[in-house]
């Protein structure tokens, strides 16, 4: 065999390693678009925020809007519902965390923490059961909040899970009142 191999083994090894590494880098770069295309596309992301006019909601009324393909309930709670919500002893709760995207992740699940300051009457919440994704029925169940017909999870008037297989309180999305009658979700 040739003399060059014996003289210069390092150069040959370097060449093989460099070529192999370039092939790996190339393969990785090619793989990316194939994964990238699975992410939500630009038109889907553009709909990730919706504005809702809530001027027509009297206390005790709710409306449901679709946000990111899921129902979000906006409820103007009655005095009684708010009192029931505040009266709950946090130690009794199955899930002690607020699950409010506007607050730190470790915020406790007080009634106030489930709403937004100054607008405590208003519940804005993704109306999807945290068990397996069914849509709970409003103002049903023993706590006067929500009741999931699929597997019997029960939520109170602040959307906190009180009984049944659901592990977490229903989640509160990022939202804000942009005026007294308008909410932006997302």
């Amino acid at each position, binding site marked *: *065999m*040739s003399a060059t191999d014996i003289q210069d083994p390092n150069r040959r090894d370097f060449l093989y390693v460099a070529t192999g590494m370039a092939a790996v880098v190339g393969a990785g770069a090619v793989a*990316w*678009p*194939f994964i*990238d*295309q*699975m*992410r939500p*596309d*630009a*038109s*889907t992301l553009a709909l990730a925020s919706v504005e809702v006019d809530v001027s027509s909601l009297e206390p005790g009324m709710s409306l449901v809007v679709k946000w990111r393909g899921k129902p979000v309930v906006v409820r103007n709670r009655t005095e009684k519902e708010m009192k029931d919500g505040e009266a709950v002893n946090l130690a009794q709760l199955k899930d002690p965390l607020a699950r409010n995207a506007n607050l730190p992740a470790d915020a406790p699940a007080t009634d106030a923490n489930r709403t937004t300051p100054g607008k405590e009457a208003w519940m804005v919440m993704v109306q999807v059961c945290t068990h397996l994704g069914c849509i709970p029925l409003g103002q049903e169940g023993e706590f006067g909040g929500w009741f999931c017909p699929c597997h019997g999870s029960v939520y109170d008037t602040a959307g906190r899970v009180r009984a049944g297989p659901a592990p977490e309180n229903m989640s509160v999305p990022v939202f804000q009142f942009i005026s007294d009658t308008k909410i932006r979700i997302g």
Partner: protein
Amino acid sequence: MSEGHSTYTPKTGIGRWFDARMPLPRLVYDSFVAYPVPRNLNYAWTFGGILSIMLAAQILTGIVLAMHYAADSTLAFDSVEKIMRDVNSGWLLRYLHSNGASFFFVAVYIHIFRGLYYGSYKAPRELLWILGCIIYLLMMATGFMGYVLPWGQMSFWGATVITGFFSAIPLVGDWIQQLLLGGFAVDTPTLNRFFSLHYLLPFMIAGVVVLHIWALHVVGQSNPTGIEVKSKTDIVAFTPYATIKDAFGMIVFLFVFAYFVFYLPNFLGHPDNYTVADPLKTPAHIVPEWYFLPFYAILRAITFNIGPINSKLGGVLAMFGSIAMLFLVPWLDTSKVRSAVYRPWYKLFFWLFVIDAVLLGWLGSQPAEGSYVFMAQMATLFYFAFFLVALPVLGLIETPRRLPNSITEAVLEKNKGGGGGHPASATAAPETKG
């Protein structure tokens, strides 16, 4: 691979355990590592590997495009535009797929012409050649149906014209055409079945490719001299020799491919396909994709009735006949010498045939009027004459050049001869080993 020849010895316990139960690593080793190839293969032989890469790339990009595409006449055009505008990296995947089809055909044409030049279809490789022809037919069907999916003007009218071929068949033609279309004209049912078949056919191609490679590994590669392998000095192992050479060929090919994808993505397409299909408005001048143009020219060249066959049926028959010629090549060529390297007359005819094919392609892109029609008729005549006259007759009367005794002898001769004329190639190939 011929049985009993395997040199695979598993090194680890797991390897032996696996080998005793399902010798897949042995198959891979025998087929892609130890598999012997002639040492004198040139870069024309890298196109087999390039085609495998292109098939894989088309299937992969196609699968992800199908995740965003909607096969409905009201949605198809917009769903493709959504891919181009909104889907992450969608423009890249779509341009890779549409240009990939073109470059798949570039590669397959080089592969076919290589086979014709070096006589790779001759015994014992007839079946290998025919399997290749079947792959080519499947590719044409896949390419045609894929071009319909974006639902632009050319998609629609291309589909209308091509399915119209079948209406030329006497008696049952209209019935067959309606069967293909699922209606009286190209519409959603047509689009939907084309999408289904466009997704299916590439996997059938992959299946025939497996057979093609199997047949290849039974008879072994042909080579530029056309002389069969005779001794161990004629061959090298597939890995690393052929693998690294194929890899380099692929990268050069991918470079040209990438140049088109990123800088000229619409160069090989037609502007009319960016206008949504309109069943009430025919474009001024319908042309198929470039890779069908020679056949399109042959179709249009038959402007006259031939006895009881009218010109429409005649055109369709001529077109299908021009493809059928390829299947017959192993038996049309009567020469005992394989490679055009040693056949001066065949070499001349081969190159004339290449020019004729390119000319037919160009004529297919021009309007069928004036002197173009006559030229297309002459070029069609030459096309058929090449297969039906030149191939059989040349083999009988041509005097071949002297053949070397073996591949090794040819290689040594070439390197010696090259030393005088091309000093660069002499330094590039230091002679140490027989």
